């Protein structure tokens, strides 16, 4: 069976699982987990470098070569449109003109809930400056549509709070967003275990982005593998077209005729 195509900003990807690089014990574990996950798109954060460290200091990008992966610089820690713009302009410079970015403008340091008003404003400017914007947002269908209309190349509604592992709290809103969308919808934030990823894909999401679910598992490498399978099985189940749910009425699988009497 031909693999169904996953298209983001004009490029095809085989994997519908996107992963983060934070919270791992070391770069080696990060690298192994990402390999096990099969992910091709990998998020990174942009931060000040340590000044005057020793020459043997390793850097993250050495472990996730650009020949193999597509980087997705994020705006984690940004609470305003200006902070997000500044961060992504720097990211574009440091990654030699790379334009695929993850926009997130946070509203509150405790919940890390997105400030959608600032997000919309930031998205407008970024799209004008030629960025391919994958935007983290709430599960508000109106905001999701606005962000699409602005020109974001993918909309990324949260399942639940970042790093919370609570899973998909509002599948109905996600379904509304998916129904109305003409760009990829990628669930980002709150996935905790494999079944959460399966549910997201069964709802019709185009992909799932996760970090903590893998990095904070007791066995991150095994969880990365589980997530790879979860994304694939959820997507296949969606494409296969599930049976209808029958409430209040059973329907036997074995024949009713020819019963031994």
């Amino acid at each position, binding site marked *: 069976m031909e693999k169904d195509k996953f298209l983001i900003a004009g490029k095809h990807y085989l994997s519908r699982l996107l992963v983060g690089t*934070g919270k791992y014990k070391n770069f080696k574990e990060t690298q192994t987990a990402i390999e096990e996950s099969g992910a091709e798109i990998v998020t990174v954060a942009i*931060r*000040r470098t340590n*000044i*005057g460290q020793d020459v043997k200091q390793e850097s993250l990008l050495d472990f996730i070569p650009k020949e193999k992966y597509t980087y997705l610089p994020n705006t984690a820690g940004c609470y305003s449109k200006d902070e997000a713009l*500044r961060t992504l302009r*720097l990211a574009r410079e*440091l990654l030699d003109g790379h334009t695929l970015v993850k926009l997130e403008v946070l509203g509150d340091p405790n919940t890390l809930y997105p400030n959608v008003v600032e997000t919309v404003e930031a998205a407008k400017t970024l799209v004008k400056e030629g960025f391919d914007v994958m935007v983290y947002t709430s599960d508000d269908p109106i905001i999701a549509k606005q962000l699409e209309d602005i020109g974001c190349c993918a909309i990324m509604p949260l399942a639940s709070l970042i790093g919370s592992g609570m899973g998909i709290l509002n599948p109905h809103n996600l379904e509304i967003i998916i129904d109305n969308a003409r760009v990829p919808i990628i669930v980002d934030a709150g996935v905790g275990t494999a079944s959460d990823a399966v549910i997201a894909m069964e709802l019709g999401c185009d992909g799932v982005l996760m970090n903590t679910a893998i990095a904070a598992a007791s066995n991150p490498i095994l969880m990365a593998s589980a997530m790879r399978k979860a994304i694939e099985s959820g997507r296949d189940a969606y494409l296969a077209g599930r049976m209808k749910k029958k409430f209040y009425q059973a329907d036997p699988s074995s024949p009713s005729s020819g019963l031994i009497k």
Partner: protein
Amino acid sequence: MLYDKAYSNKFKIFEYKNNPMKIYVNGQQKKFEANEICLTTLIEKLVLTEKKFAIEYNGEIISKGNFPKTFLKDGDKLEIVVAVGGG
């Protein structure tokens, strides 16, 4: 004339020795005695080992090609950023 020139040169050396250039890199104050430091030289002095980084110089992103042409002056603020792990 000769006397004036010798005197003013001596004065300049005196001035630099007692007023080192102070700049801020990633929020840290750095002092430099020399007077002509471009960004390329600064990166060497800071022992920056990362291959991929970007520099914001007084709020403006400077492309790598312009590092040799951008000279530091007293009070400059620089942000040097790299990619790190994140979700």
